[in-house]
């Protein structure tokens, strides 16, 4: 049984059909990619599955349970973590607090714990801090724990976002252009980290990317999207040589 199954998902923004009859199956531990020209609807698909938009039609099943129409926070605590294309970090908050906040739904001390510093709260907060430090170690930023996130360089901010998503204990991780705006060095680091995370935590990963190098290197299966519809699906090799994909990216040759 696939970990995540999306069947026949369609979404309209008013009269505009943003996504049409979209299907997806992700097995545990698989890395899948989603590519397509600008405005093809890639991020919309992410937002539909993670509950930010409610799809007009279709069914989404995560780990045997339907998550269509649930609140984003419920879906996230079911095991669907994500990062954002434009960094959505919280300025004014330190790096460690970012990652600790990913554990929000795992905290169990309730309001009494929040209002009075009960032993239970101290215990849980301590445990959360430890987990957060381990995750920071994993993405290679343990020394930045107490810094404000806005003081970090761009590449490091991306990694904080990844660690924050990992703190929610996802079974499947959605990465929206994880290497956007990175320089070649940061890019190689990021790819290494994604591989490590994939191996160590045995995660399924679904990623949107523009850089072919990243997608071709990381993904086992790639979907290509154009105008809200999947025009090709296959291994990197197949996608690379698919004329429809080349057309979508470069435009059709017109014979004069």
């Amino acid at each position: 049984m696939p970990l995540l199954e999306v069947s026949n998902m369609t979404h309209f923004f008013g009269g505009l059909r943003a996504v049409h009859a979209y299907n997806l199956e992700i097995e545990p531990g698989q890395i899948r990619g989603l590519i397509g020209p600008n405005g093809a609807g890639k991020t919309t698909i992410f937002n539909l599955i993670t509950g930010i938009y409610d799809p007009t039609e279709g069914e989404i099943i995560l780990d045997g349970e339907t998550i269509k129409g649930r609140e984003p926070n419920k879906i996230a605590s079911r095991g669907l973590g994500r990062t954002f294309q434009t960094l959505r970090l919280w300025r004014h908050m330190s790096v460690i607090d970012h990652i600790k906040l990913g554990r929000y739904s795992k905290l169990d001390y309730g309001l009494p714990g929040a209002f009075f510093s009960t032993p239970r709260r101290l215990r849980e907060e301590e445990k959360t801090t430890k987990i957060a430090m381990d995750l920071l170690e994993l993405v290679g930023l343990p020394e930045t724990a107490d810094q404000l996130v806005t003081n970090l360089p761009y590449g490091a901010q991306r990694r904080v976002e990844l660690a924050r998503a990992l703190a929610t204990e996802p079974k499947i991780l959605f990465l929206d252009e994880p290497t956007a705006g990175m320089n070649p060095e940061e890019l190689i680091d990021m790819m290494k980290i994604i591989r490590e995370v994939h191996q160590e935590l045995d995660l399924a990963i679904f990623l949107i990317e523009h850089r072919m190098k990243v997608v071709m290197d990381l993904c086992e299966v790639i979907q290509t999207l154009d105008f809200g519809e999947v025009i090709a699906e296959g291994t990197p090799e197949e996608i690379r040589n698919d004329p429809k994909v080349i057309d979508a990216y470069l435009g059709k040759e017109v014979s004069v």
Partner: protein
Amino acid sequence: MPNKIKSAGKKTWGTITSRFKKFRSNFRDVPLISWLVAFGVTVALEIFVGQALARMVGLSKPPALFGVALVLDNPAKFLSAIIYMILVYALPVGVIAYLTKGVGNQIAKWLLQFPLLLTSVVHLLLIYGVMHYWTNISDYRLLVARLAMISIIVTLSLNVVNGYMGEFSCSHPGFMALGAYISSIFTVLLFVTENRFGDALMPAFLGPFMFPVSLILGGFVSAAGALLVAIPSFRTRGDYLAIISLAFMFIVKSLFENLEVVGGARGISNQPDYANLATIFVWTVLAIWIINNFVRSTMGKALNAVRDGELAASAMTVNTQKTKMVAFLFAAFWAGIGGGLFAHVIRYINPGTFGIRKLAEVLAMVYFGGLNSVTGSIVGAVGFSLISEALRPLDIFKWIIIPIMLILIMIYRPTGLIAFREFDVAQLFQPKEKQEEEGVDHAAA
């Protein structure tokens, strides 16, 4: 030539600031406990020789609030007031804090081995002691101190919504009114014999023990009122909360104006005098402790996450709806407590008290002190209360000077004096090291 003057001026200014920095660096390693001891000695000094000293420098009695009001009344007394302030406050505080810093640091270090609770109790007792004797000198001081502490509670609770959560709520006077009325009705009905509610229903000696119950009841009613505001306005973001909460404030006000049972526009009087300095002090400490606990927990940090990016917060499993509700109700609860205490300090409330003036005051305290900061709220509430009292002789001009001050703060420090800082009690009580001073010297060299 003008250039020369300018550079000379700059030079003297530079030497003054560097001297001042050097002078201040002597006090960097003074622990809190030494400051408290120094203030204690000052207060003792004022009690024993204050009157004589005031006569000597040409004042009829010790100035109640640092002499500002006195000087504004009669500018000729300026020099006398300054001399008095230096002799009784500045000099002894500075000298004793400086002399006792060694011992103070040792005591602070010694206290480190005990649980934080004990250290806190020691410090709080000292703070209370100083305040008790300081306010003993004049009733006016006592009143200002009690109102300032209530302001701390109310400001802190509003900061949870306007600062930590980043929404703009205007209904705090409404919540205060609910708390004030409910607790007043409770105590007057049960423990006071008067015209409106008739004979006392319970023996008077129970009163002080039931007072907390009345406050908490008021707090819960405020929180229930907050629910009415929260349900419609938290479905969306933006200005809706500001508008709905402002409406709520006026609704509460006109509700009490039209309820003849609770006195209509004339309000309720004859509240028993339960809110003495110690009671208010305990409630203020409780409020600071609980609110600080809340905003420093991961659950409280979720408020900041909702403020700085709600979408990301919900993707990180934060239940944004619940988080906002809890914080808003929590803030309203404390505003209710503050209102209840306020009613029992003034011992007379009417609906007019909780209007737009009160709102302006509380908002000013929050933004003056600093958003997203417990320390800021304490500084803002106390500072604003003192300034507002000190400028009282100016009458209407007070309301010109205070807004100008606020505008200046908004220009030079848009988030307030002490914004976005965590309030760490353990750090506050720690012995102070000499390290920082070396850093300053280094920079000066």
